[in-house]
């Protein structure tokens, strides 16, 4: 693995049992992402994009092959350490935002820092700059249900950014947004990339993928570089 590589996957396979059949979702995937890259994984529905993202995000294990993130062999890492890696190295941005409905905006944003053991006040102080960059300063006491789709996604992005991860993982980040909100979020991604963040974005939309620095196609579980 090169020092430049943040993600280095080799021969990764993943299959699920569907009734009596074994469904091969990822087939011998080789995939690398360099530090500072903005990569889009483009593929139609059912091509295995989300499975690949879950494996990259250390939320699912692989059947065979190897996966290293920042030089850490994820395929051999225990759950406790994976939780730590998810907290420190990865910032997730989901299509459906996945905000906790009972917590307000601030509580949602600082949650990864609280998980890390920071006290509430320090965590809030550390997030202030990001919150202001994303224009959420006047929405901090609101519950997610009181926000628009674009605002919710910005909260999710703020949550992903506040822990200063080495990798931002976005799964269809504009999938639930209208066109203008989607464009706004993508512009934000571009800006984050220019700030030096490494971003891997999964999408089925060619127009969204265009925003990325590099696009790879995933078709029927096979990655075409």
């Amino acid at each position, binding site marked *: 693995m090169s020092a430049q590589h943040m993600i280095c996957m080799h021969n990764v396979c993943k299959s699920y049992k569907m009734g009596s059949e074994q469904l091969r979702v990822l087939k011998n995937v080789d995939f690398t992402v360099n530090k500072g890259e903005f990569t889009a994984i483009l593929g139609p529905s059912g091509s295995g994009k989300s499975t690949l993202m*879950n494996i990259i995000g250390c939320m699912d294990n692989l059947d065979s092959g190897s996966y290293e993130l920042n030089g850490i062999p994820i395929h051999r890492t225990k759950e406790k350490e994976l939780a730590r890696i998810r907290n420190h190295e990865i910032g997730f941005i989901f299509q459906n935002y996945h905000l*906790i*409905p*009972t917590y307000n905006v601030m*509580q949602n944003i600082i949650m990864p820092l609280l998980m890390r053991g920071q*006290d509430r006040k320090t965590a809030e102080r550390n997030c202030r700059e990001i919150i202001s960059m994303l224009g959420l300063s006047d929405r901090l006491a609101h519950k997610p249900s009181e926000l628009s789709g674009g605002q919710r996604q910005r909260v999710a992005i703020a949550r992903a950014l506040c822990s200063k991860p080495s990798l931002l993982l976005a799964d269809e980040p504009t999938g639930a947004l209208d066109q203008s909100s989607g464009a706004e979020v993508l512009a934000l991604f571009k800006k984050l990339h220019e700030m030096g963040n490494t971003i891997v974005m999964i999408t089925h939309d060619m127009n969204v993928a265009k925003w990325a620095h590099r696009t790879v196609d995933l078709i029927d579980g096979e990655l075409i570089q």
Partner: protein
Amino acid sequence: MRFTQILDLVRINLIQNKFKVLLTSIGIIVGAATIVCVIAIGRGGQADVAEQFRNLNAGAMDISCEQPQKGSSSRGANAAGASVRSASNTAKKTDPSASKQSGRSEKNVSGYPAELGGNTQTKSTRRITLSVDDMDDITSAVAGLSEATITYTTKQNIYGGNIEDTESYTVAGTLSDYARLSNLSMLFGDYLSDADNENKQKVCVLGYSAAKKIFGSADQAYDSLVYIADRPYTVGGVLAQQGTVESGISADEAIFIPYATGIKYLTGSNISPTITIIASDVDNISSIIDNVKAVLAQSYPDAEFTISDAGSKMEAANKSNRTLTLMLIAMACIVFIIGGIGIMNVLFVSVKERTEEIGILKAIGGSKKVILLEFIMEACCISLIGGLLGVLLSFAVTPVLTGFGLRMELSVTGALIALGFCIVTGTVFGFYPAWKASRLVPVEALSSE
């Protein structure tokens, strides 16, 4: 994640679901209230027992003769012998202090002494009357006794004071040492003296309640006259209030007269006295009982005597109180188990409802430990809230139960025990749902919606 922050998350979740928390904790509320009440009832019971036996000396033993039994047909020399001895005893006792003329006697139903026509008499109809002589026999023959006294009670019609018609009261014939042996204290005047007994004086001492009922108040009763079976008795003293007693004469309600006076003017020899002896060492009670039986068996070979010691009575009363308390605690435990199962059910539903949230927490780095702790603490907090409400409920319920005559003594210990039970219930029953939540695979939890 810090413990205080997990608590903060729990707080937010509980505030968001106030009504659900209240419904979930109903079982615990009832359980905690039950525990507090049970402990209060137990303490009340203990206090009751302590109060009822307050006037009893732990080393005291009451000796009385059992009621004649039917069915036995033995007759003969023993009975006659006892009577002869009785007669000789009576003859022998010339001591004027004797009140002791009340001597030991056995009578048959027909009223003829056994030695005259006694061969037709059966044990079943024989009546044995304990006497001062028997008491003297016991005190001289049995070692380890510090004191002894003899008493009897009779129901007599009374008038005087505020009583317009006659009223029936318990009149107790006692010796002068009865007050000391029974730990009775005087409010006015003095207790009966030896001289009163020897001279068969018509004096009496009134129990506190009796004095109030007959004369309106204790001080008005003192030095007044009260008529017992149409004879005037001077009230020489009034007892201080004693409270209820489990054993012996209920002092508050009784009228005390000299032993010999009662026999002369009220009862004749038709009495069933009880001899009370005090063991100098409580540990020797069982051997003393055996010795007393042996002494009495010499005088009355066929007779059955009941010897009850105060310590055993206290122990029996405490034991029955403990049994009741244990039964109630068992009931409270069942309520707690039901409450705990309620919590477990609700937490299972909660884990199901919040699977996505668990997935999110895991995706952003929440470990199994954090999820486990959050759910367990949530269960504990629900239980604790239930416990606090339960304790408040018990405070509200206590006056109602007390109104029904149940003695309850609320205590901080009771409340703390109830809260302890709540925390244990929450932890035990909350653990499994929490463990299930912590084991969820992040990707599956996230896609659960």
